[in-house]
């Protein structure tokens, strides 16, 4: 693999002006860890169904610092989702946070956005020191370490105490793969102080016909009574591979709702970790994979119950047609102290073609006795009777199929509380089903 030598070169060539020692130390340790473990192979249990290392047979480049010259705010605006024009939008170009292109509509009192280096050196030093890199304890693979090794032009987002942000915050990742294969490594640290409320939307666009690989890490911390709604929309081209790791740490009694919609893309792996680190946390995780062509989407969730009286619920739905692969691997851990935990997990899948694959690995690891935990998993087809009912009423095969699949998706979709986003996703799904 050419990349290893390239990464080494790049790492040694990193400008030494990265102001904060915290970040410098972290990335140094991470690079050593990357050197030690390398890229995850499918021999690793956690990567059994997703082979990332084969993607690295080709060479990826980190972007040069000049790609934003070609992208103006107006050209970016054309990529916006409905509703995004009225929201706070942060743009990441090739994984680098672009403060100048970004548009913050909320006041500084309501929402603090800083380049991570500045936050680490300034008033948020303590938070950065405590929480940046805390996901490494859970994600020990080389890819995650690689992101940490190259923390550069990352973003720090802070919601002050009591701020109930009414307009959502979009993180829009644009990869500029027009000339060469691009490896982008966006990194964010988001902190929700007591009683704050954030609606976060993430979306991805790859420009150009070369391959892109987005190796993203987001760390989110929630204090007491904070509320987070987190939407991720993956609707990129088949040349766009992605490993997106989100690590949510609930240090106070708080509420998280996460929703991941995967419609198009190449090889996609979503790591979603929830650490329930205070009594009474509540978490709802939803996911929908609607795949065709050669897409490969691997939802990998981990809910670590560390404190008593927590509640978590997971509902993941997958539809795979053509040669697509839909994977759900969920893991619930209940630590010895986490008595009275209620943790539920459900994965429902429809397989529409003999070339498609569905793999599921719902796991429970329970070390406390006073708990209620369950998981369920099904793989099947469209209900023949429902099909017959529709066909008998003169609805053509295609429409009937599409109708039933929309119904199957709907209990995930109705969880999208952002009206424009939900409408947009519903439209995408209708178009998606009509074209297949």
């Amino acid at each position: 693999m050419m990349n290893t030598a390239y990464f080494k070169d790049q790492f040694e060539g990193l400008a030494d002006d990265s102001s904060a020692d915290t970040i410098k130390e972290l990335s140094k340790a991470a690079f050593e860890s990357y050197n030690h473990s390398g890229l995850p192979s499918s021999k690793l249990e956690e990567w059994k169904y997703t082979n990332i290392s084969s993607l690295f047979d080709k060479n990826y480049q980190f972007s040069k610092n000049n790609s934003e010259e070609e992208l103006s705010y107006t050209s970016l605006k054309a990529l916006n989702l409905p509703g995004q024009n009225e929201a706070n939008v942060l743009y990441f170009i090739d994984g680098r946070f672009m403060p100048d292109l970004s548009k913050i509509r909320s006041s500084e009192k309501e929402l603090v956005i800083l380049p991570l280096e500045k936050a680490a050196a300034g008033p948020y030093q303590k938070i950065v020191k405590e929480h940046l890199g805390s996901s490494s304890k859970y994600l020990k693979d080389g890819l995650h370490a690689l992101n940490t090794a190259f923390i550069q032009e990352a973003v720090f987002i802070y919601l002050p105490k009591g701020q109930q942000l009414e307009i959502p915050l979009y993180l829009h990742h644009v990869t500029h793969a027009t000339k060469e294969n691009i490896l982008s490594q966006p990194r964010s640290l988001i902190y929700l102080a007591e009683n704050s409320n954030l609606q976060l939307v993430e979306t991805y666009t790859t420009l150009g016909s070369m391959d892109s690989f987005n190796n993203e890490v987001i760390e989110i911390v929630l204090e007491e009574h904070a509320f987070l709604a987190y939407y991720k929309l993956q609707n990129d081209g088949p040349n766009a591979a992605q490993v997106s790791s989100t690590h949510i740490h609930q240090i106070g009694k708080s509420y998280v709702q996460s929703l991941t919609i995967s419609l198009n893309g190449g090889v996609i792996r979503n790591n979603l970790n929830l650490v329930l680190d205070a009594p009474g946390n509540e978490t709802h995780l939803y996911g929908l994979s609607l795949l065709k062509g050669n897409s490969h989407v691997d939802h990998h969730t981990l809910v670590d119950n560390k404190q008593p009286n927590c509640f978590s619920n997971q509902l993941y739905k997958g539809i795979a047609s053509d040669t697509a692969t839909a994977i759900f691997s969920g893991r619930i851990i209940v630590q010895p102290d986490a008595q009275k935990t209620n943790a539920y997990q459900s994965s429902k899948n429809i397989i529409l073609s003999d070339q498609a694959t569905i793999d599921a690995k719902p796991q429970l690891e329970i070390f406390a006795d006073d708990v209620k935990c369950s998981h369920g998993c099904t793989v099947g087809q469209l209900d023949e009777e429902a099909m017959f009912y529709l066909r008998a009423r003169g609805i053509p095969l295609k429409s009937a199929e599409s109708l039933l699949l929309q119904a199957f998706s709907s209990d995930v979709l109705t969880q999208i509380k952002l009206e424009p986003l939900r409408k947009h996703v519903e439209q995408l799904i209708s178009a998606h089903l009509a074209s297949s």
Partner: protein
Amino acid sequence: MNEDLDMLEQSALNDYKYGFVTNIDTDTIPKGLNEGVITLISKKKNEPDWMLAWRLKAYAYWLKLEEPNWANIKHPPISYQDIIYYAAPKQKEQLSSLDEVDPELLKTFEKLGISLNEQKRLTGVAVDVVMDSVSIATSFKEQLSEIGVIFCSISEAIQKHPELVKKYLGSVVPMTDNYFAALNAAVFTDGSFCYIPKGVRCPMELSTYFRINAENSGQFERTLIIAEEGSYMSYLEGCTAPMRDENQLHAAVVELIAMEKAEIKYSTVQNWYPGDKEGNGGIYNFVTKRGICQGDYAKISWTQVETGSAITWKYPSVILKGDYSIGEFYSVAFTNHHQQADTGTKMIHLGKHTRSRIVAKGISAGQSQNSYRGLVRTAKGAINARNYSQCDSLLLGDKCGAHTFPYIEVKNKTAIIEHEATTSKIGEDQLFYCRQRGIDGEAAVALIVNGFAKEVMNQLPMEFAIEAQKLLAISMEGSVG
């Protein structure tokens, strides 16, 4: 309070009633494993050359392997040179009937509750007894041979039916399958062999009783069962061992082959010595069990009740190759004190219209860890494959763990797969209901656990079910606090 103490004392005594040692002279070979030892075992068993060649090939392969570490179990490294690979009770040459068996040995089996004589008369179950490494006695052989059923030790089968052994040995679990299967292939000393000819419905339950008696010895038995077209057989397997401080290794291989329309029902009550309350000693039970539904409409059903062993590591599996074939797996795994169990099944759907059903019940108490690990795979050609899996875990005590690791892999658009798992403790309301009616705590828990395991227990043959229920009750004593 006093009553509680009494009860605890009682349960400490009751813990493992099969923990006695039988003082019989044994013929053992020195510790250690090398080609010389394997040749010696083969020679002692008077095996043909092809068998020795097979063993040495397996040994050469085993040397290349590393011990697997993916299971959810922890144990100190096993020293394979510290094990005696062959230990046989010394006895007169060639027994012609049970009457000639060493009386000391017969006493042992009486203590185990399987008086061969009595069972022969009363229950009509044919028993093959394997002590340490060799098969001691097989009852009912003549009656069985009249209808063409071959039921004997595998050593005897190698001598008398080499064509069958040669054809099927290693065909379901090849020597290259895994670390312990390779080890077993190299050093296996005895086990049972069973052949049911075409169209025969075996009139009685066939049963094997395994016992490790000698110190420092390991038991490596190999069982091979072949059911020809249209035949039926039910097979029972039981295991015990004396209480010793050190860990003993038991690495068996079981192969089942079911031809067209044949049915094999394989039941195990595993009660190897689980070690003491502090987790010292006990058997490491690392077993590879696999059956293949070779022909259409074949059926293989595994039922297991696992209460013993310090560590259990086994996944009885079914390869559903024939169209319309059926695989079943029913399991109760109970762990107490420091026991660890990582058990489950694999259902590999290859043929069309194949069906499988998995019911696994795990009960953990004390500081034990109990894991279910299973795989359901449907291949591209497995049209209309159907699977239903249910894994329930019950936790008794706040220091134990219950884990579920199911793997589901579907590559076929007509497959329907369902998996369901729950984990909980015994409901306060259920306990209250019993206590209110004058049933004491211990009995109430036993009652509820029995109800929890019933779905599986019902699958066991009658006399085995009673034994298994008692076993469960004994293992559970003292686990409620």
